[in-house]
């Protein structure tokens, strides 16, 4: 391309980017989430999802109550041993790409329920992308976790789909 021809190209009408970066950008702002709500953290989830804090501002406004149509699994609350197979089934039914957020101390580590009935953190059952601590977490913390997840999605590697996400 000659020097003068390049000057004649219309400026501001196209951008150059990597395909992976574009894909990440598109995905991080269109998170369909599936709330797996089992306990009191659900109240904070509602607060974060509704108008006052409004996770829709970050593109995560569309709640899907079918795991097959969602990208982000929000595990909100205590997961018992009895419930563990259900949660794993829900995770396995989600289509790729999918991300998991452990919402609240119980989902992160079992919290105060260190007993015979409760799974000590959902990362013992399914892989987790972002942990949001708090009992329950403030909506600001939830938004922070969401932004962290968006950052993670943006910088996902090109071949992430072929990686085995389950050990």
């Amino acid at each position, binding site marked *: 391309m000659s020097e003068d021809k390049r000057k004649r190209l219309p400026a501001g009408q196209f951008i150059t980017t990597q395909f992976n970066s574009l894909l990440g950008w598109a995905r991080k702002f269109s998170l369909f989430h599936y709330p797996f709500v089992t306990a009191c953290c659900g109240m904070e989830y509602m607060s974060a999802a509704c108008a006052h804090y409004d996770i829709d501002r970050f593109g995560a406004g569309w709640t899907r109550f079918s795991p097959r149509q969602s990208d982000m699994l929000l595990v909100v609350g205590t997961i018992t*041993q*009895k419930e*563990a*197979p259900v949660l*794993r089934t829900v995770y396995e039914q989600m289509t790729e790409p999918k991300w998991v957020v452990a919402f609240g101390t119980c989902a992160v580590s079992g919290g105060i329920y260190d*007993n*015979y*009935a409760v*799974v000590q953190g959902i*990362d*013992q*059952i399914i892989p987790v992308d972002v942990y949001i601590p708090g009992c329950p977490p403030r909506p600001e913390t939830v938004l922070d976790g969401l932004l962290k997840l968006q950052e993670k999605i943006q910088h996902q590697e090109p071949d992430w789909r072929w990686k085995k996400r389950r*050990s």
Partner: protein
Amino acid sequence: MEEKTILERLRREFPAEVEGAAASPLGEDVVIIGKGALLPVMAYLKAKPEDYAMLLDLTCVDLRGEEPRFEMVYHLFSLTHNRRLRIKTRLPEEELRIASLTSLWKNANWLEREVYDLFGVHFEGHPDLRRLFMYDGFEGYPLRKDYPLRRRQPLIRLKD
């Protein structure tokens, strides 16, 4: 009702079965009975004139180290008299059986299933004595004092 307290009235009705009263920090009526008399005593209390129509709660206590080891606790409430009553009875570990109250109160069904689930008490005459909270295949009774603190029985394989 000529006798003043519920304990006296129960003593008059069931002289052989009432073992005494217990102290309660809030001054509620607590009566200790023999476990064989549970059903007739409860039927008497539910009927008029006592009219303890409501079974508030039913639970068990593991008093490990004492003999007999287990204690069943029944909480009754009389709506007409606005009075509460606690009935206690002891069960030895070798013979963890007691009559079911499902014939008197329907809500005893799930309460007894809970006690069966967590303490292993068998309720005779219960229509459907299955575990309530824990899953099939769970071994042992988790609220007993000798259930190991760190024992976990996961349903699916956990990553550690």
